[in-house]
Each structure stands twice: as structure tokens, then as C-alpha cells.
């Protein structure tokens, strides 16, 4: 039950993009096309889970025993960056089909603050390994959801006569504000 709760809170109540302002760059940049947003969303999900699976043991089995917890930021970012690189190299060489559909999003993910944030929070929320993985999945599904919703609305807005001074990025933020208002409906859903 707790796992479901962690998941739902991460997806709906504390949505990573809408309520926590994380991963905005790619959220704004990668939603001009529905397919693209889905691809990015799944790529992020994949890497987030991988990163969580890598950083959680590193923290608990290496950094804590050595008393090096203060190196957390440095180690985590290095691990994630290398991880992404390795995954990219691997996909490029061995599964070119998957690389063509997902690989192009990988470089963007290194600096996707949502992933780093998840790995930090797994530590600071004192989640167990399983909880951490669930949380990672929840956050990235929340990200995917926000991406897909904005992509749908953007698709629709292509034919709207948006006032000139709001065209482009401004209207995307305003749309996000309104999506956020709708998502406020989920607040208090999980107690």
C-alpha cells in the first residue's frame, strides 16, 4: 500500500513538473510533437530507474561506510553522466533501432534535473531500495504524463489565434499554469 501511495503521490499530487518545477527545459523544449514527448518520457523513465538503482547502493554501501556522504552530489552526477554515456554507446552499437527512437534524447537527460533530484530525494526521504525504485518510476511517469498532456494541448494550440505577445514560450508556461490548476484537484488525494 505504501508503495502505491509513493507512486501516486509522485505521479499526481506532487507532479515533478507541474508542482515541483523540475525538468522544465525538456518539458518546454520537447513537447512540440506528441511522439517526441512520449519518446523523451520513456527515455527519462529508463534512465531514472537505472540511476536510482545505481546511486542508492553506492550511497548506502560505499559512501555511508566510508563516511563520505558529503560527496553525494559529486558522485551522483558523475555516476549518472557516465551511465547515460555508457547507455548511449551501448545502444548506438548494439541496438541501433532503439537508439534511433530513444538515443537522441539521452544527452538531454544528463542535465535533466528531475533525475538527479530523484536520486537525492531517495536518500533524504530515507526510502528503502524498493521504495526508491517505485519513487523513481512514479516521478518519471509523472514527467511523462505532464509531457504528453502539454504536447496534446500544444498540438491543439497550433491552430489557435494566440495573441502575438504570448506566442511561443509564454503561452506554454501559461498553459502549464492551467494544467497545474487542474492538477490541484489531486491535492489531498493521498493522505
Amino acid at each position, binding site marked *: 500500500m505504501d508503495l502505491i501511495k509513493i507512486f501516486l503521490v509522485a505521479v499526481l499530487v506532487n507532479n515533478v513538473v507541474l508542482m515541483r518545477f523540475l525538468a522544465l527545459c525538456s518539458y518546454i523544449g520537447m513537447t512540440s510533437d506528441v511522439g517526441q514527448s512520449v519518446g523523451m518520457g520513456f527515455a527519462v523513465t529508463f534512465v531514472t530507474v537505472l540511476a536510482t538503482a545505481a546511486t542508492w547502493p553506492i550511497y548506502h554501501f560505499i559512501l555511508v561506510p566510508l563516511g563520505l556522504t*558529503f*560527496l553525494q552530489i*559529486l558522485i551522483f552526477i558523475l555516476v549518472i553522466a557516465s551511465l547515460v554515456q555508457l547507455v548511449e554507446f551501448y545502444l548506438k552499437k548494439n541496438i541501433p533501432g532503439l537508439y534511433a527512437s530513444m538515443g537522441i534524447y539521452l544527452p538531454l537527460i544528463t542535465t535533466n534535473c528531475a533525475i538527479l533530484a530523484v536520486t537525492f530525494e531517495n536518500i533524504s526521504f530515507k526510502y528503502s531500495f524498493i521504495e526508491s525504485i517505485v519513487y523513481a518510476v512514479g516521478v518519471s511517469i509523472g514527467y511523462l504524463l505532464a509531457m504528453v498532456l502539454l504536447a496534446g494541448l500544444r498540438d491543439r494550440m497550433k491552430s489557435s489565434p494566440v495573441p502575438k505577445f504570448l506566442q511561443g514560450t509564454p503561452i506554454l508556461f501559461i498553459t502549464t499554469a492551467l494544467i497545474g490548476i487542474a492538477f490541484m484537484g489531486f*491535492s*489531498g488525494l493521498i*493522505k
Partner: protein
Amino acid sequence: MKGIAKLGLVLAIFAAAACASLAVVYAITKPQIEAQDQIALTASLKEIFPEAVNFEDVTDKIASKDPNIKFLNAVLVKSENAPIGVAVKAAGPSYGGQATLLVGITLQRSIAGVRVLELKDTPGLGANANNPGYFVKKAEKVTFPGQFTGKYLTDAFAVKEDVIAITASTITSKSLTKIIKTAGDSAAEWLETVTADTSAETTGGK
């Protein structure tokens, strides 16, 4: 292959240098960071028990009866050397997630004071519990946690009857009251066991 090794070496040098300087900063700030929680807790405790001087950690001795409410910390508060009350840092579910309260109980089983340490409820509604400018009794300027001060645990704790609720936030009011009541009851129960053997010192009160 040589190039690769060189790459790793340069990286290692930079990493070592960076981390070394980090380690220095860490060593300097470590005591301060570790003391931080204690400092904050002591400050709150002193607000509730102004005459408090010494604190004795009794966290392991007081257990919560409600599985949803967890006691993070409990201290026996003493003036110079005589106990004057118990403070419990209790966390329980509220409207927007975990709420953490510090509840002080006097030896007379009355509430010495309540501080809201952490509350994630709706701003403007539930969050008013932690708003020093929000008064449940406007005339007397009594805040929501403020109204508990002086209340005996034997008194009724029914929200909307005995406890004034925050406007349109019955859930927050109820959950906070429940945390206070649970913490108070547990503390009082523990006090019974303690006072049994230290009664000579403590029952001399008012």
C-alpha cells in the same frame, strides 16, 4: 590506449583535488550541521518551557499508541535538576502529508505548549495552523496551537466543540488535535511510571 589512461589520470587528479577541498569544508561545517537540529529543538523547547535548563533524552521510553503517529523524539525537561515536564516531537498524517508537532506536557498532565514544526497543508486553509497571524480567537489573539496551552489532558478534545477548528479546515484541525492528544496521553502515561519512583521530588508541585 595511452591516451585513455592519460584521460583517466587527469580526471583523477582533478577529482582528488576537488574532493580534498570538499573534505576540508565538510570537516569544518560538520559539527555545526550536526548541532543544527539540536539547536532548533532546544530553542522550541525553551519557548514552551521557559525555565528549562537541562534535557534528558527519553525517546526510547515513550511509545505511541496510534500506529499512524510516530514519536520522533522525546525529552524529559528539567530545570536545573528537577523535571518540569515532557516534550514529544510527534509526526502524524494530516491533510497534505506528514505534520510534525512539538508537544510539551507539564507534570500536572496539562499541555504546556504546542509548536508546529512542519506542516504541508493547503496554504490559507490548513496551513493556518502554522501561521502566527491566524487567530482562532481573534479578540484574544489565540492561534490554533496556542489554544491548547493550559488544557488538561483529562479535558475533552472534540474538534468544533472543545477545540476551535480552523475555518474550512476540519481535517487539519482534527488530525493535529489527534497528534497532540496522542502525544500528550503517551507522555502522561510514561510520567505515571516515572513519577512513581521519583514522586518525592515531583509531586510537590502546585
